């Protein structure tokens, strides 16, 4: 549900073409607003980047609003956000309700005049429900306008292969495994031992993902709260870099780029023993390697919990003609009951802390992951989560560092030269 996949930017040209064709589709929703006549037909469009399992909630909404028809459109993750950008820039084609992922939220909230202020439709009543940081991510930069309401968040854990752990003589019980790596340094050390003992598997998938998780756990990431790019001077980023390089040099990486076809094959064949797991990634692993059911388990993330990867907000662009209905739909889609339902249906970790003690979630186990209590693991991670401000071009920044680590891994550059080139790449991000 909340996947930021840097480096998987999909065809922009196609996106621009789509934007024009989508503009034609969107025309249907531009009927004059309902003025008092309750029977007037209204069409609401909802634009998402994957299946959010919203369909039953639409039916619920229609029961209360028989005159409303809801049409859902889906696009590939990067296409979806680029489409929204072009739709806002050209002033046509945006849906009534749009999903915006955490990696992009700070790109859109500064454009406060292009979205409806949901405060005006009474949604500020929801503030008490929410995790404070998730609520704030949906506000305009000056905090005066409520532009988006959160659906889910992406608390972190570490998934691991019990069969490979057994082979290396490591414990397989998830609590004991969690004790192996209180810090990332410990994780790296265990990994070095692992690759010394097991010849046909590596410790983790690729260089970029652990780096990303380490930075996500720091109090400050690539940007400060004034949107200044501080990645080059932030000691936490440098520390994550140094540790990543150290792990690469110890030969712990399977050298697989996340979400690439070889990565899928590697998941299936057991090319690596551990993989960083935001809650939504449990679904990705299951989709990519269905035959590995039961071989996986889930332990705590190194570095003492914390860290968020992904998660989504729902926003209402001003191009929509039915702000009242759109706001009501957003309210329902993010309601407490529905967030609970979406966790069990789609693995979407709620952004409403009151649910973290709900027995439906805390008692939830995932059979694919050896019946690991993922409900408890991810809510614990969510409770320990130290929120970090995500800047406007976080995705491009991550691509620069990911490429730099790959250059080191492929032996094309010395670590320091790769770091310097990454910093030069950052200067080009406008």
């Amino acid at each position: 549900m909340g996947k930021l996949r840097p480096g998987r930017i999909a065809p922009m040209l196609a996106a621009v073409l789509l934007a024009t064709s989508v503009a034609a589709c969107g025309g249907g929703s531009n009927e004059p607003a309902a003025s008092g006549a309750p029977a007037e037909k209204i069409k609401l469009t909802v634009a998402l980047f994957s299946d959010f399992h919203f369909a039953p909630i639409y039916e619920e909404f229609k029961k209360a609003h028989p005159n409303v028809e809801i049409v859902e459109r889906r696009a590939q993750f990067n296409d979806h956000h680029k489409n929204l950008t072009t739709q806002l820039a050209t002033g046509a084609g945006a849906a009534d309700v749009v999903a915006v992922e955490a990696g992009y939220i700070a790109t859109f909230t500064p454009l406060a005049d292009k979205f409806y202020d949901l405060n005006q439709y009474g949604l500020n009543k929801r503030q008490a429900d929410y995790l404070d940081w998730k609520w704030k991510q949906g506000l305009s930069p000056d905090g005066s306008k409520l532009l988006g309401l959160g659906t889910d968040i992406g608390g972190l854990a570490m998934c691991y292969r019990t069969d490979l752990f057994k082979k290396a003589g490591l414990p397989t019980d998830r609590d004991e495994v969690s004790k192996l790596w209180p810090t990332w340094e410990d994780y790296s050390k265990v990994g070095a031992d692992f690759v010394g003992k097991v010849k046909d598997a590596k410790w983790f998938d690729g260089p970029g993902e652990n780096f990303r998780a380490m930075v996500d756990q720091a109090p400050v990431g690539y940007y400060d709260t004034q949107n200044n790019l501080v990645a080059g001077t932030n000691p936490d980023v440098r520390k994550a870099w140094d540790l990543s390089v150290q792990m690469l040099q110890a030969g712990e990486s399977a050298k697989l780029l996340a979400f690439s076809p070889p990565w899928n094959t590697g998941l299936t064949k057991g090319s690596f023993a551990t993989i960083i797991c935001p809650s939504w990634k449990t679904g990705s692993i299951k989709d990519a390697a269905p035959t590995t059911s039961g071989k996986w388990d889930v332990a705590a993330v190194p570095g003492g919990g914390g860290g968020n990867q992904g998660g989504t907000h729902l926003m209402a662009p001003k191009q929509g003609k039915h702000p009242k209905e759109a706001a009501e739909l957003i309210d329902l889609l993010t309601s407490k009951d529905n967030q609970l339902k979406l966790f069990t249906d789609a693995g979407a970790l709620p952004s409403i802390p009151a649910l973290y003690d709900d027995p439906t979630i805390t008692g939830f186990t995932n059979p694919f992951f050896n019946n690991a209590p993922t409900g408890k693991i991810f809510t614990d991670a969510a409770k320990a989560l130290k929120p970090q401000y995500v800047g406007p071009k976080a995705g491009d920044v991550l691509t620069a560092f990911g490429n730099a680590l790959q250059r080191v891994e492929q032996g094309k550059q010395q670590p320091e030269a790769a770091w310097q080139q990454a910093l030069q790449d950052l200067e080009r991000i406008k």
Partner: protein
Amino acid sequence: MATRAPDRSTAVSRHRSERLSRQLAHRLDVKASPYAYVAPFLLLFCAFGLFPLVYTAWVSLHEWTLLSDVHKFVGLDNFTFLLGDSYFWNATFNTLSIGLVSTVPQLLLAIWLAHLLNRPLRAQTLFRVTLLLPNVTSVVAVVVIFSQLFGRDYGLINWVLSWFGVGAIDWNAGTATSHVAISTMIMWRWTGYNALLFLAAMQAVPRELYEAATIDGASGFKQLRKITIPMIKPTIVFVVITSTIGAMQVVAEPLLFGTYSPTGGPDRQYQTLALFIYENFTKLDFGYASAISWMMFVFIVIIAGVNYLLTRRSGGNIT
């Protein structure tokens, strides 16, 4: 009579004015109709050819990002930055390298295939359709399959190479290896198509020449070299031109080979010019992307010009 006189004069003047208007209509028809006939092409060309070209030039003179309403005029700054941008020259090198590695073997192979098919065969149509099949396959499907074949750990090609004691090659990581992999995908898609063009040209070569050559004892290869290739030279020139222009525009193969990475690998080892434009478009930096587009246009004009000169020089020999 008296009453008819004015009638007649009006009739005459009406007649004259009718003739005049007919003349006018005729003249209009002669002068304007041709424009009307070519108007559809001109309008389409202006809308989809000329206007984008001019507008891209206009955008390239600005600092132009999509979400900002202010477009600052910066003159030729984008171009001066571009000429000093090592990533741009890297992309230019990659484009030429991939173009060369894919086009030359492709054309040789296409001629050879066409030569094989240019003889009485059973199920001729079947073979010809088979040649075209790779070309109608979706480029995405082709690249996904070939990326698997060129996989480092579980790729078929590395597996076959391992029989000969060659260690696992990381095709994606190296500059030369990635160019070979991408060129293979391009060749797979276009060799058959070009072979069909060559075959069509070969069928127009008079049979008598081959008969005479056979009587004189010329081998098949010698016939190909001495008769076929000189006779189909115009087609070869045409195919060379279209293939070079196609090679300048390669984008889908490197983009998908890098799993949607617009940098064309971590070290930009296979980022082509078109992919470099795409990278800057996805960053919504339209000014810079437009400047690159214009530089690419200039390159294509230069290459087309060189091709034109070569064609003209050899024109005497061919016809």
